[in-house]
C-alpha cells in the first residue's frame, strides 16, 4: 500500500522513527513548520519591490562612498584621439582588412586569408578561393597566430649569448660570405628543415654553385618525406604521391593516421569527408594500427595490431590481392585479411592503400605495390613531380673539418638524435626561439614568423603559393630567404625581391598572385608511371611483455615540439586521450595489467640502453605490448609556457618511429594527468547516434528510433516569448553538425579560441575542470554489449581502465557547444537576467550583467558554460603551472608591487610588460575580453552575425533589403564552421527553408541531444553512418553504441533488427 502520509510521515505500521520531540508529539507548531517551504520570515524577502529597494539604497550608499573618496572625479579619464597627419588612401579605421598568404608546412603549404585590424593580424582562415579548397584549415594553422605574439620569441641578434646590433650581425654574415666565396665553401655546412619554397630551392642551388664544397643537410624530426622517397623508389622516377581519398571507395590504412598526425591532414579530411556522404557515395575505411588514432576512430573496420606487424600484414594483403595464399600474421584473423583484400580487388581502380609516415620504407613499397595491382595509380593515387632538394645524409656527417655550421630553423639539439663529434668554430643559427639549440650556438639570429615574411611554397597538390607579410617583423628578425641570400653574398637580399625574381612575375602578374594568394594554373601535371621496384620481403617479430614495441608519433598538439610554447596547443585536449599539458606512455589494458601498472604510475622505459621516464595512461583500443610515446614534450628551454611540460621521448628516439625491444620498470612515483574527459562511456544515453549504411538505406529515423527516451510532450505553462518574437525577427539561427563528416581533429576548438579571445588556464586549472573552451569535442568509447555487464557502464572513472571491454572499442566524436536551446534551462535560473534570448534565437550572454552565481552552468544539461574562476587574461604565463593564484596585495611584477601598479593603471595585470603588450595585440577587438567572475559560452559568433547584419543594413539604406540570404552569400560563417576541413559544421538561417541548414535538419539523420528534456536545441546533430563490410569477421548489424543503448534501456523500437549476423 502506498504511503499517504506527508513527507514527514513514517509508515503507519511497523517501527516509527522520529526526528525531534515535537514530531513525536505532533504539535500544531511542528505541523505548521513542516508545511512552510521556508522558515518564518523568509518569504518577506520574496516581495520584489522591497528587495529591489533595499538593493537600490545599498548601491546608492556604496556609490556615494565612492564619490567621497574620489572627490568629484567621476568623469572618465581624458583620452586623446590621434588621427593620421597624412591620411592614407583606402584605409578606414575600424574596418578589417584581409590578405591572402600561406603557411608553409614540411611537405606543402596551407593557403590562407588573414584578417587584420589596424595592421595587426588577428585571425587566420583558409583561402576558400584556392582550387578545391573549402576554406578549412588545421589545428596548427589556427594556433600559429598565437606564435606571432609569443613573448618568448627570439628578439635579439646575439653573439656568444650577448646582444649585438643587427648591423654587426649582418656584417658577420658578409664576412662569412666573402670567406667562403674565396675558398669555395670549404668548411661550410648548412642544416635546414625541409621546405617546399621554390625561392629557397633556388638559393640552395646558388649556394651549391658558389660554394661547391659546402655541405647541405635537410633533416626533420618528423620525417614526412618518406612518401616521396618510397614513391620515387617504387616508380623509378622522382615522384611524390597525392592520395585522392575523394575518389576512393575502399581505403586501407596501414598505420597511416592520415586524418590526424600525417602532414597535410586537413586536405585528407576534406577529401575523405567528400567521399563519405551516405546516400551518395560512401567509402569504406579499413585501418590497421597500434595507437588509437583519429583515423582509427573513423574506421569501419579497425584492426588492433602492433606497429611492427603492419609490414607482414601489408605483405599478406599483397599476396591475397595477387591471388596467392594469405600468409598468417600473428594475432590476425586470416579472414579479416582475405575479405579486406577481396573488397579492395572488387573496387579495382577505386581503392587505395596508404602506409603511415611511422612505418618503414618496406611498408610504403608494399602499399604502392598493392596500389599498383589495384589500378590505383592515376586514379586514387596521383603522382606529381618530386620536390627535389639535394641533401647529404646527416648520419655520415660528424662535424669534422667544419669551420662554420649554419642551422636554419628547427631545434636539432632537442629533437635530432645527432650531434657533431667536434664542435665547429662557428655555429650560426637562425631561429624563432632562444631554445635548446640557441644556447649552444655562437651566433643567433631571430627569425620571422610567416605572417611577417615574404616567401613562397608549393602545396601538396603542386600549386605555387605566395607568402605575404601582414606586419613588419615585430622584433626585426630575418627571413630564411634573406639570411641565405646574405650568406650567398647576393646583391638582392630583400625577400620580397627574391620571391618575385623566383616567380618571374611582372607588376600586374605579381599583384594578381598576391591578390589570389597563388599562381593561377601553376598546378603540376600528373605523371604516369608503373611500379618498377620489387616488393620487399619482410620479417617481423611480434612484441611481447618482455620485448615491448615503442611507437613514436607526431603529437596532435605540439607537433615535433615546435609548438610547445603555444598555450592554445598545450591546452587543446588531445583528440583521442583528451589529455592536456602532458604526454604519457600510452598502453593497452592488457599491457598494463601484465606489467602491473595503472594510470599515473611513473615508469622508466629502457630501449637499447637509452632510458626515459613518464606516466602510464591506459588507452582503449591500443595494441597489446605497444607503447605510444608522443614526441615534442619535455622541452628544457621552450619558454614560459612550454618548458618542463611532459617528458622528452626524443631521449630514446633513434630515428625509427617503431622500435622493438623495450622494457619498462615502475619507479614507484605517480603523476597527475590533466584530462578533460574522464568518462569513456555514454552510459547508454544516445548522445551520439549511429547506424550502418543498411539502416540509412532503410530510412531509419534517428530521432524516432530512439524516441523512448522522450517523455510525453506537455504543454508549457507559460508561453515562450521567443515564439512571439520569431514572428517579426529577420532570421532564426541554427546549426547542424554532421557526425558522419566530423573526424574530431580539434581545428574548430582552436579556431573558436582564436576568434573569441578565450584564455588558457594552465594544467592545474584544467585538472579542476576549469578549462575555458567554448567548444569541446566529446569522445566516447563504445563496445559490444556482451563484453560488459550493464552495471559497468556506470563505473567509476578511475576503474574503467581495468575493464576488459576497453580492449576493442569503437570511438565516436561529438563537438559540443552551446546548443542554443529555445527553452534554455540556463536562462530561467539566472537571477539577474544576464543570459536571455534575443529575437533571432540566440541565447546571449551579457557579461556586464553577470554576477557569477554559476546557477546557469549548474542547470545546463550540456555543460557548455564556462566560468572565469580567475582573471586568466591578467595571469602571468609563468604562473600557469602553479596551484596558487597570487593577489595584487602580495604579488610583484617586474619588481613592482602590483597594488601600486594597479593604482597607477587599473588596466595593468600581473603580467610583465612584454607579455601584456603582445597579448593586447593578439586579441580580437570585436569580442569582449572577459574578466574574473563572469560566465561565458559559445555565442554562435554573435560578433560575426552582427557585423553581417550591420553591413547588410548599411547597404540597404532606405530600402527593406535587410535580410541576410544564403543565396546572396551574406550569411556569416561561425569560426568553427569556417575552420572545419570536413565541412561538418553548418550554420545558417533556419527560418529560410532553402538554406543549407534547414535542408539538413529535414534529414532523417537529424536529432537533438537530450531531446527528452524538451530544451529544443537549435544545434542539432546528424547521425553518424558506418559502412562495414558484411563479409568481414567483425561485422555487426548495428554500431556498438546502438546496441549499448538498447541493452541499457531494455530494448527499443528497433529490437527486431538487432543482432549479429
Amino acid at each position, binding site marked *: 500500500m502506498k504511503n499517504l502520509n506527508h513527507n514527514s510521515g513514517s509508515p503507519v505500521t511497523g517501527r516509527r522513527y522520529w526526528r525531534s520531540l515535537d514530531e513525536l508529539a505532533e504539535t500544531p507548531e511542528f505541523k505548521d513548520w513542516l508545511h512552510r517551504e521556508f522558515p518564518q520570515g523568509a518569504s518577506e524577502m520574496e516581495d520584489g519591490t522591497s528587495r529591489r529597494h533595499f538593493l537600490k*539604497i545599498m548601491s*546608492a*550608499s556604496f*556609490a*556615494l562612498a565612492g*564619490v567621497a573618496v574620489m572627490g568629484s572625479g*567621476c*568623469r*572618465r579619464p*581624458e*583620452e*586623446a*584621439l*590621434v*588621427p*593620421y*597627419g*597624412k*591620411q592614407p588612401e583606402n584605409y*578606414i*579605421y*575600424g*574596418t578589417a582588412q584581409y590578405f591572402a598568404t600561406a603557411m608553409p608546412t614540411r611537405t606543402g603549404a596551407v593557403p590562407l586569408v588573414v584578417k587584420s585590424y589596424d595592421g595587426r593580424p588577428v585571425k587566420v582562415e583558409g583561402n576558400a578561393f584556392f582550387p578545391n579548397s573549402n576554406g578549412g584549415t588545421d589545428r596548427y594553422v589556427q594556433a600559429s597566430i598565437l606564435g606571432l605574439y609569443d613573448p618568448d620569441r627570439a628578439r635579439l641578434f646575439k653573439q656568444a649569448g650577448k646582444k649585438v646590433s643587427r648591423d654587426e650581425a649582418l656584417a658577420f654574415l658578409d664576412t662569412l660570405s666573402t670567406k667562403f666565396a674565396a675558398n669555395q665553401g670549404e668548411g661550410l655546412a648548412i642544416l635546414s628543415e625541409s621546405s617546399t619554397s621554390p625561392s629557397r630551392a633556388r638559393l640552395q642551388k646558388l649556394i651549391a654553385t658558389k660554394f661547391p664544397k659546402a655541405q647541405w643537410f635537410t633533416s626533420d624530426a618528423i620525417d614526412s618525406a618518406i612518401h616521396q622517397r618510397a614513391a620515387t623508389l617504387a616508380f623509378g622516377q622522382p615522384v611524390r604521391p597525392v592520395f585522392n581519398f575523394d575518389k576512393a571507395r575502399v581505403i586501407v590504412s596501414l598505420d597511416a593516421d592520415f586524418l590526424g598526425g600525417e602532414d597535410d591532414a586537413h586536405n585528407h579530411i576534406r577529401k575523405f569527408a567528400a567521399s563519405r556522404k551516405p546516400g551518395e557515395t560512401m567509402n569504406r575505411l579499413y585501418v590497421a594500427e597500434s595507437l588509437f588514432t583519429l583515423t582509427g576512430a573513423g574506421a569501419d573496420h579497425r584492426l588492433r595490431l602492433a606497429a611492427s606487424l603492419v609490414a607482414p600484414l601489408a605483405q599478406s594483403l599483397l599476396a591475397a590481392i595477387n591471388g596467392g595464399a594469405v600468409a598468417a600474421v600473428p594475432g590476425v584473423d586470416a579472414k579479416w585479411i582475405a575479405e579486406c583484400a577481396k573488397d579492395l580487388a572488387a573496387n579495382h581502380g577505386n581503392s587505395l592503400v596508404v602506409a603511415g609516415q611511422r612505418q618503414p620504407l618496406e611498408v610504403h613499397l608494399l602499399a604502392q605495390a598493392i596500389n599498383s595491382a589495384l589500378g590505383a595509380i592515376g586514379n586514387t593515387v596521383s603522382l606529381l613531380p618530386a620536390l627535389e632538394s639535394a641533401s647529404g645524409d646527416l648520419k655520415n656527417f660528424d662535424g669534422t673539418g667544419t669551420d662554420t655550421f649554419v642551422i636554419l630553423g628547427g631545434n636539432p639539439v632537442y629533437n635530432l638524435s645527432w650531434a657533431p663529434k667536434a664542435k665547429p668554430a662557428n655555429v650560426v643559427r637562425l631561429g624563432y626561439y632562444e631554445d635548446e639549440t640557441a644556447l649552444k650556438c655562437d651566433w643567433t639570429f631571430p627569425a620571422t614568423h610567416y605572417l611577417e615574411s615574404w616567401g613562397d611554397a608549393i602545396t601538396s597538390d603542386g600549386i605555387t603559393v605566395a607568402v605575404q607579410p601582414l606586419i613588419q617583423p615585430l622584433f626585426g628578425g630575418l627571413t630564411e630567404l634573406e639570411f641565405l641570400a646574405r650568406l650567398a653574398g647576393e646583391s638582392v637580399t630583400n625577400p620580397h625581391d627574391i620571391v618575385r625574381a623566383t616567380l618571374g612575375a611582372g607588376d600586374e602578374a605579381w599583384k594578381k598572385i598576391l591578390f589570389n594568394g597563388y599562381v593561377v594554373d601553376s598546378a603540376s601535371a600528373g605523371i604516369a608511371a608503373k611500379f618498377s621496384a620489387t616488393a620487399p620481403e619482410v620479417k617481423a617479430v611480434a612484441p611481447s611483455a618482455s620485448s615491448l614495441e615503442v611507437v613514436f608519433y607526431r603529437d596532435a598538439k605540439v607537433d615535433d615540439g615546435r609548438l610547445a610554447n603555444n598555450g592554445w596547443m598545450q591546452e587543446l585536449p588531445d583528440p583521442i586521450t583528451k589529455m592536456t599539458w602532458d604526454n604519457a606512455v600510452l598502453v593497452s589494458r592488457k599491457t598494463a595489467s601484465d606489467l602491473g601498472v595503472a594510470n599515473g604510475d611513473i615508469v622508466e622505459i629502457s630501449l637499447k640502453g637509452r632510458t626515459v621516464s613518464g606516466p602510464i595512461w591506459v588507452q582503449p583500443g591500443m595494441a597489446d605490448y605497444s607503447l605510444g610515446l608522443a614526441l615534442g614534450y619535455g622541452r628544457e628551454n621552450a619558454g614560459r609556457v612550454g618548458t618542463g611540460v611532459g617528458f622528452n621521448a626524443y631521449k630514446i628516439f633513434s630515428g625509427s618511429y617503431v622500435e622493438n625491444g623495450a622494457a619498462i620498470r615502475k619507479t614507484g612515483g605517480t603523476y597527475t594527468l590533466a584530462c578533460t574527459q574522464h568518462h569513456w562511456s555514454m552510459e547508454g544515453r544516445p548522445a551520439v547516434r549511429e547506424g550502418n549504411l543498411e539502416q540509412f538505406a532503410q530510412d531509419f529515423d534517428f530521432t524516432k528510433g530512439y524516441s523512448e527516451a522522450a517523455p510525453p510532450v506537455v504543454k508549457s505553462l507559460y508561453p515562450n516569448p521567443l515564439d512571439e518574437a520569431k514572428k*517579426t*525577427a*529577420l532570421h532564426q539561427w541554427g546549426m547542424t553538425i554532421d557526425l558522419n563528416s566530423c573526424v574530431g581533429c580539434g581545428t574548430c576548438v582552436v579556431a573558436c579560441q582564436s576568434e573569441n579571445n578565450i584564455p588558457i588556464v594552465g594544467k592545474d586549472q584544467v585538472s579542476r575542470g576549469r578549462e575555458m573552451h567554448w567548444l569541446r569535442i566529446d569522445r566516447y568509447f563504445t563496445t559490444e554489449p556482451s563484453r560488459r555487464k550493464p552495471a559497468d557502464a556506470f563505473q567509476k572513472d578511475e576503474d574503467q581502465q581495468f575493464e576488459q571491454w576497453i580492449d576493442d572499442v569503437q570511438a565516436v566524436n561529438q563537438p559540443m557547444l552551446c546548443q542554443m536551446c529555445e527553452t534554455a534551462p540556463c536562462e530561467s535560473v539566472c537571477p539577474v537576467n544576464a543570459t*536571455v*534570448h*534575443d*529575437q*533571432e534565437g*540566440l541565447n*546571449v*550572454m*551579457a*557579461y*556586464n*550583467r553577470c554576477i557569477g552565481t554559476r546557477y546557469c552552468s549548474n542547470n545546463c544539461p550540456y555543460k557548455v558554460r564556462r566560468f572565469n574562476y580567475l582573471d586568466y587574461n591578467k595571469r602571468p604565463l609563468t604562473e600557469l603551472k602553479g596551484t596558487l593564484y597570487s593577489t595584487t596585495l602580495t604579488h610583484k611584477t617586474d619588481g613592482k608591487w602590483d597594488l601600486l601598479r594597479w593604482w597607477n593603471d587599473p588596466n595593468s595585470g600581473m603580467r610583465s610588460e612584454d607579455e601584456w603588450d603582445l597579448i593586447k595585440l593578439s586579441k580580437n577587438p*570585436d*569580442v*569582449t575580453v572577459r574578466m574574473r567572475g563572469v560566465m561565458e559560452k559559445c*555565442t554562435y559568433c*554573435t*560578433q560575426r*552575425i*552582427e557585423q553581417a547584419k*550591420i553591413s547588410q*543594413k*548599411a*547597404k*540597404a*539604406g*532606405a*530600402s*527593406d533589403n*535587410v*535580410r541576410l540570404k544564403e543565396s546572396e552569400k551574406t550569411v556569416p560563417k561561425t569560426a568553427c564552421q569556417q575552420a572545419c576541413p570536413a565541412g561538418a559544421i553548418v550554420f545558417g538561417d533556419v527560418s529560410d527553408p532553402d538554406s543549407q541548414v534547414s535542408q539538413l535538419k529535414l534529414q532523417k539523420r537529424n536529432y537533438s541531444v537530450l531531446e527528452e528534456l524538451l530544451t529544443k536545441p537549435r544545434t542539432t546533430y546528424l547521425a553518424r553512418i558506418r559502412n562495414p563490410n558484411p563479409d568481414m569477421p567483425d561485422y555487426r548489424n548495428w554500431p556498438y553504441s546502438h546496441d549499448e543503448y538498447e541493452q541499457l534501456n531494455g530494448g527499443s523500437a528497433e529490437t527486431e533488427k538487432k543482432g549479429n549476423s
Partner: protein
Amino acid sequence: MIFPKWTNWLPLVLGLGAALAGGGVVAGVTVYLTPKYTRAGYQPVQPVPFSHRIHAGQLGVDCRYCHNGVEKSWFSNLPGASTCMNCHNQVLKDDARLQIVRDSAANNTPIPWVQVHKVPDYVYFNHSVHVSRGISCVECHGRVDQMDEVKHVKPFSMSFCLDCHRDPASHIRPTDKVTNLGWQWSTNAAEAATLQQVNGQKFVHDWKVESLQSCSACHR
C-alpha cells in the same frame, strides 16, 4: 536622573535626521551619478581651436567631408591633418592657430584631439548602420553645427540608447537629411511632430527597421 529630559526627543530627531539624510543621498545619487550629469556637459579644450559652428554651420561643409569613414565603419574617424590642408593651404594659410595642423600634415605627427564622445564599456556601437538608415548625427551629438567647441550634450546612458531603440519612428528621417542637423519636417513644431510620427512609422515599416532591444544588439 541619568538621562536629561531632552533625550526623550532623541529617537524622533534621529529618525527624522536619518530620513532626511537618506532622502538626500537618494536625491544626490539620482542627480549626480547618472550619465545625464557625469557625461552631458563635458566640453574639453581642444589642441586646435576648431569651430564646428563655422565649418559645418556657416560654411555648410558636410559632416562626411571630414568624418569620411562614418558610413563604412563603426567608428566615425577624425580627419587627418592632410584633409584640413585641402582648404587651409589656400585659406588662412599663415594663421598661427593652424600651426599644429600644418606641422601635423608636414611631419605626419598626429594632433592629440581630446575625445569627447565615448560609449560606455561593453557596448559595441556602430556608426555606419545608424547613419545609413536615417538616424541623424544630431540624435546623439546635438547641434554640433552650432558649437564652437564640441560639447557632450546627450547622456549616452543605456536608457538613452533604448529610448530610441524602443521608438525609432520618432527619430528616423530621410537618409539624405542625416547630416543636415537643423532639418525639420516643418517649421511649425506641432506639424513637424505629426509628420515625424506619420513618416517615421512609414519608414520603419518600409525599410524593415527592427526595434532591436535584445542584449546582442549592442553587447558581444
